[in-house]
Every structure is written in structure tokens, then in C-alpha cells.
């Protein structure tokens, strides 16, 4: 019951008028970001990060996490009304959401999407409330080998869960690690791999990479497709909301299953995107109306949306309790925490109780705020999408440039961001996954330090990674994930 008390304390922190205002601003900004092409949760937060430096950390993280909830909600609007997934995790929502909108059931689809998003997020937050402190307490006993094993599992999961070529996933991920190693060696203080460049001593900041890869890269992709938005009109009638809500309990099984898929994929860093596809696929296979999926089934909207939100939210669990984020957006939030001098990880729960529980409480409130805002303001957000691309595109590029500049106040970094944009475009077209690359760039130093400390302690003996039951089983699980594509291939041949 300790958690309940702490949570109520958290509510008292989060419920100040200033924080509530930030919550609403955050959600609105987040939905706008989610609706716009080229801006998403990860790079949107990366760009807005410098603006929060003057705020108290708790307020700042509340606003930033609310941007994230908003972005998660926003993806559904574009998918359903315009058949354009604003975010990768809402691709699966277009399958049934857009047909529903074409049949004039846009209100029903949107209500179902928002409500199930809310339910997914809510279940994930409840899980975080009770599980995060436990994991953090447990992780206090972790040494370097244990931490390395968690990093190892994180990255191996990408290979095991990835859909494309495991070799490409591996190359993209290691590219991230390689870039992370440029600059200062944190253990010896030695400069390394900067090839004589003073600019590169700072290393490659992942915020720059995130802004370029997801921002400029996305704009280039949209440009190539020659985007023209044509969408259904959007207004949500309160009567439709009530009618849809009455229908939803019928699909409790789908919701529950999607929550589980989402939570699982969020904690192990599969992420929201595969979670939404997996959940859609499962719902299609298990539903009685499975064959009708794709023609405008409410269930086909509920499944991916619930899972995407559950995954997006639970990605914060390993970020908070272990300091190891489960998604690029969680990684950006982690970057923010580091800038405010807060080291995420098990100690955070002991030393910064106010902050942690304020954040967790704000997850509950932020999602309620989000649900209210999206249900009432859909026409407004849909109008943003009708702004022609030739106005949106230069404005987003300007925002990306400003965002990249503010990271270190260096123009070199802006050029770097542009280069990452081109890399992002090529990676996307050739199916090199970007999420593992970004996470490797963020976690590279931490993974390296824990690895080096571990083998330093053992005098170079690698058996330290299997020295006790805990580290051994996490490593073994990681190896299973790593070899999973191979196992699958062999099974396919047999």
C-alpha cells in the first residue's frame, strides 16, 4: 500500500494549477505534433526540450510526457480521417479506421480509437505504478554485469522482434553504438574517434539524430509521395460518443489481449509499432468477425490503438526504473532527465520521490486530459491537416533547424541534423530500422561502461556475465532473442 500513498502524494504534486495548465498545453501541442507530418513524439519532444530548461524539472517532465500522450492520440486522427498514419504506430489503425470514416462512421471510429487508447494507456500506467517501484528496488542490487545484461537483452530484443532483415537491424544498431563512441571516452577521459575534429569531441548527440532522422527524413518521404490530403469531415457528436461507448464493453476480450500485448512489447523494447500490428493480427485471427477485418470493423480500430498506447506508455517503465528506455521517445525523455541532473534508474525512486510520483500521477491525469481534448477538438486538429504541404514543409524544416541549433548552440550540429535527415530517408526506404539505432546512440555509453566495468572487475573473464542466476538468465534470454531469427529460419526449412 506504500505505492498508493506515494501515488496520492504524487497527485498533490501534479495537481497544482501551473502543472495542470502545462498538462493541457502539452497534450494540445502533442496532438498537433502527432497530426503534422515530419513531427512526432520523439523529435517533437527533442525540439521542445530546450524550452523547458527554465521550468522546475517536475513541471517540465509533466509537460513533455503530456506531449507524448498527445502525439499518441494524434496519430489516430490522421489515420482514420485521411488514411495517412501520422505516426508509425497508427498504420494498423488505418486498416479499419479509414473504411469506417468512408462509410460515414468517422465519429464512431475516432471515439473507439481514443477510448481504447485511453484504456491501453491507463492499464499500462497502473502497471507502472505497482511494478516500477518493485523493479527499481530489485535493481538497486544490480552491479555492472547485471546492468550490461539488461542492455544486452534490450538490444537483442530488437533483433528477435524485428520484422525485417536481422542483419540490417544489427548494422543499424551497431552504427548507433559506433557513433555513440565518438568523442570523450567517459572512463579514461581520452578523446577518441573524432578524427581530429574539434566539433566531434562533443560526440554525436542523439537529439540531433532524432530530429534529423524522423523530421527531415519524414519530410523527404512525404515529398516523394507528393502528398495531397483529402479527408472525411470530422465532428464528434456526443450522441455518437455515448452510442460507441455502449458498444465497447462487448470487445473486452480484444481490449484485454491488446493491453497485454502492448505492455509486454513496451517493456521489452519492441515498441508501439510492432505492438499495434501484432495486436491487430491477433484480433483478426481470434475474432468471430475476423474475415470482415479491413472493411471497417470497430474491433480493428480498438486492437491496434489499445496496444500502441499500452506499449508507448509502458516503454517508460524500464526508463524510470532502470534508466534504460524502451522507445526513442522514452529515450528523449531520458535525455531530458539527464539534462536536469536527474539520473534515471533505481536510485531515482529513493532520492527523488516527489519527481517520480509526480510524473506517474501526471500520467493518469494527462491521459484523462488527453481524452477530453481529443474528443472535443477533433475538427480543429483535422483543420491543421488541411493546411497545404507547401506551407507545412518549410515551417517544419525551420522548426527542425531551430531545434537542432538549441541542443548545443552550434551551427555544425544543424548540418549534422540535415545529414541525418538524408540517412533517415535512405534507411527508411531500404528498411534499416531507426529505433534500435537511436537507442544505441543513447545507451551506447552506458552499455559500454557497464561492460567495461564488469570485465575489469573480473580481470577479463567473460564468465562474469553468467556468474549468478540473475545475470545468467537475463543473458540467456538475450541470446535466445538474438538467435531467434536463425531458429525461425531453420524451422521454416524443416
Amino acid at each position, binding site marked *: 500500500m506504500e505505492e498508493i500513498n506515494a501515488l496520492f502524494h504524487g497527485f498533490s504534486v501534479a495537481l497544482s494549477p501551473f502543472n495542470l495548465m502545462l498538462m493541457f498545453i502539452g497534450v494540445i501541442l502533442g496532438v498537433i505534433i502527432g497530426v503534422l507530418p515530419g513531427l512526432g513524439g520523439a523529435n517533437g519532444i527533442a525540439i521542445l526540450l530546450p524550452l523547458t530548461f*527554465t521550468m522546475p524539472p517536475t513541471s517540465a517532465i509533466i509537460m513533455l510526457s503530456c506531449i507524448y500522450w498527445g502525439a499518441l492520440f494524434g496519430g489516430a486522427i490522421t489515420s482514420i480521417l485521411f488514411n495517412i498514419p501520422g505516426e508509425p504506430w497508427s498504420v494498423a489503425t488505418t486498416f479499419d479506421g479509414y473504411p469506417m470514416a468512408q462509410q460515414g462512421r468517422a465519429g464512431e471510429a475516432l471515439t473507439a480509437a481514443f477510448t481504447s487508447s485511453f484504456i491501453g494507456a491507463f492499464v499500462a500506467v497502473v502497471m507502472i505504478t505497482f511494478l516500477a517501484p518493485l523493479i527499481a528496488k530489485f535493481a538497486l542490487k544490480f552491479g555492472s554485469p547485471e546492468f550490461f545484461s539488461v542492455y544486452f537483452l534490450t538490444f537483442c530484443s530488437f533483433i528477435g522482434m524485428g520484422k525485417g532483415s536481422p542483419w540490417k537491424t544489427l548494422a543499424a544498431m551497431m*552504427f548507433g553504438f559506433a557513433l555513440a563512441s565518438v568523442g570523450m571516452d567517459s572512463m579514461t577521459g581520452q578523446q577518441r574517434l573524432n578524427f581530429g575534429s574539434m566539433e566531434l569531441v562533443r560526440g554525436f548527440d542523439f537529439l540531433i539524430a532524432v530530429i534529423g532522422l524522423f523530421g527531415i527524413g519524414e519530410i523527404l518521404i512525404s515529398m516523394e509521395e507528393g502528398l495531397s490530403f483529402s479527408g472525411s469531415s470530422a465532428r464528434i457528436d456526443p450522441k455518437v460518443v455515448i452510442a460507441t461507448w455502449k458498444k465497447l464493453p462487448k470487445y473486452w476480450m480484444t481490449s484485454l489481449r491488446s493491453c497485454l500485448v502492448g505492455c509486454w512489447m513496451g517493456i521489452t523494447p519492441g515498441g508501439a509499432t510492432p505492438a499495434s500490428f501484432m495486436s491487430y493480427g491477433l484480433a483478426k485471427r481470434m475474432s468471430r468477425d475476423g474475415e470482415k477485418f479491413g472493411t471497417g470493423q470497430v474491433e480493428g480500430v480498438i486492437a491496434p490503438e489499445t496496444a500502441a498506447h499500452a506499449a508507448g506508455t509502458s516503454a517508460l517503465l524500464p526508463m524510470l526504473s532502470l534508466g534504460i528506455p524502451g522507445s526513442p521517445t522514452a529515450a528523449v525523455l531520458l535525455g531530458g532527465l539527464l539534462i536536469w541532473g536527474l539520473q534515471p534508474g533505481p536510485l531515482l525512486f529513493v532520492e527523488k520521490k516527489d519527481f517520480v510520483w509526480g510524473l506517474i500521477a501526471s500520467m493518469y491525469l494527462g491521459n484523462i486530459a488527453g481524452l477530453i481534448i481529443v474528443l472535443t477538438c477533433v475538427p480543429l486538429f483535422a483543420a491543421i491537416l488541411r493546411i497545404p504541404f*507547401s506551407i507545412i514543409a518549410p*515551417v517544419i*524544416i525551420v522548426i527542425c533547424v531551430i531545434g537542432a541549433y538549441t541542443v548545443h548552440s552550434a551551427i555544425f550540429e544543424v548540418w549534422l541534423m540535415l545529414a541525418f535527415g538524408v540517412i533517415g530517408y535512405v534507411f527508411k526506404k531500404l528498411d534499416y530500422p531507426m529505433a534500435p539505432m537511436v537507442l544505441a546512440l543513447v545507451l551506447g555509453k552506458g552499455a559500454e561502461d557497464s561492460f*567495461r566495468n564488469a*570485465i575489469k572487475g573480473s580481470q577479463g573473464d567473460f564468465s562474469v556475465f553468467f556468474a549468478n542466476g540473475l545475470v545468467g538468465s537475463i543473458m540467456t534470454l538475450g541470446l535466445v532473442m538474438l538467435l531467434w531469427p536463425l531458429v525461425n529460419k531453420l524451422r521454416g526449412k524443416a
Partner: protein
Amino acid sequence: MKPEQEAETGDRPVATNRTMEIVVAGLFLLFGLTFCIASYQLGSGWSDDGPQSGYFPFYINVIILIASAVTLAQAIMGKTSRPRDAFVSVGQLRQIMAVLLPAALYVLGVQLFGIYLSSAVYITLFMVWLGKYSWGKSAALGISISVAVYFMFEVWFKVSLHKGSWFDPLSLFGL
């Protein structure tokens, strides 16, 4: 040129997926090799106080070399996805360059003249050139966005943005 012919040249691929796969895998190999050598020179072995600076990067880049070699081999054998399809067509590349090149010029402008003037000019030209809007409308939007950014960053949040290394137009306004 007739419209159909125009469409034909527009659809012609600049490169196939297979070619691009080979190029990208090749670049990865080059990157991995450079980093491997640099890590080796840095010291990729073991010293008295544990692994040296280049130890971890060295093996990371060895993995890049292995993974990209496999992708390269797969690409050459045509086993990557949709090898014959166009990676990008002439028309698409033209569209992309129409965004990318001005963006690069814009960043150059930011470097020389600061963010505010460059952003206003960039948004205006983009709208006139690609959006076929009138000069008045475009300039109005470009300038108002720049002014809004100025107030948001310099005044409200007290974050200083780049002022231009060659000439700072804001100095004309005494700012």
C-alpha cells in the same frame, strides 16, 4: 514534350533498390573499416586498468563489417526485398531535391545571416516557388513566423538563437 513523355521520364528509376542496397552496404563497410582501424590505433587491447578506449568500438565495428558483408552478399545475389523496383524515380528525386537543396541553402543562410532573416526568406521562397502562392501572402507568413519565433525564444524563454557569423540583420533594428 508531350505530357505522356514527361510522365515516362518522371517514372524512370534513378537507381534500383538492389543498387542502393549495394551502395549502402558498401558505405557501411567503409565506415566500419575506418572505425576499426581508428579504434585499433587507439588501442583495442587490454591495459593495466582494464580494456582500452578502442576495445569496445573495435568489436562494435567488427559486427558492422560482418552484418554489412552479409547484406552486401544478399543484395548482390538479389535476395533483398524488391530488388528490381525503383529506389527512387527521376520525378521523385526532383521533388526531393526541390526540398533538400533549398534546405541546405537555408542552413547556409542561417550560418551567415542568422536564423530570423533566413527563416523568413526561406518560408517565403518555398511558398512562392513550390506552393505557387503570391509574394504578398508568402512574405507575410514568412515574416510573421520569424517574428513569432523571435518572441518565443529570445524574449519569452530567453534562449538565444544563431545570429549570423557574417552579418547580423537584427543589428539593423538595434536588437
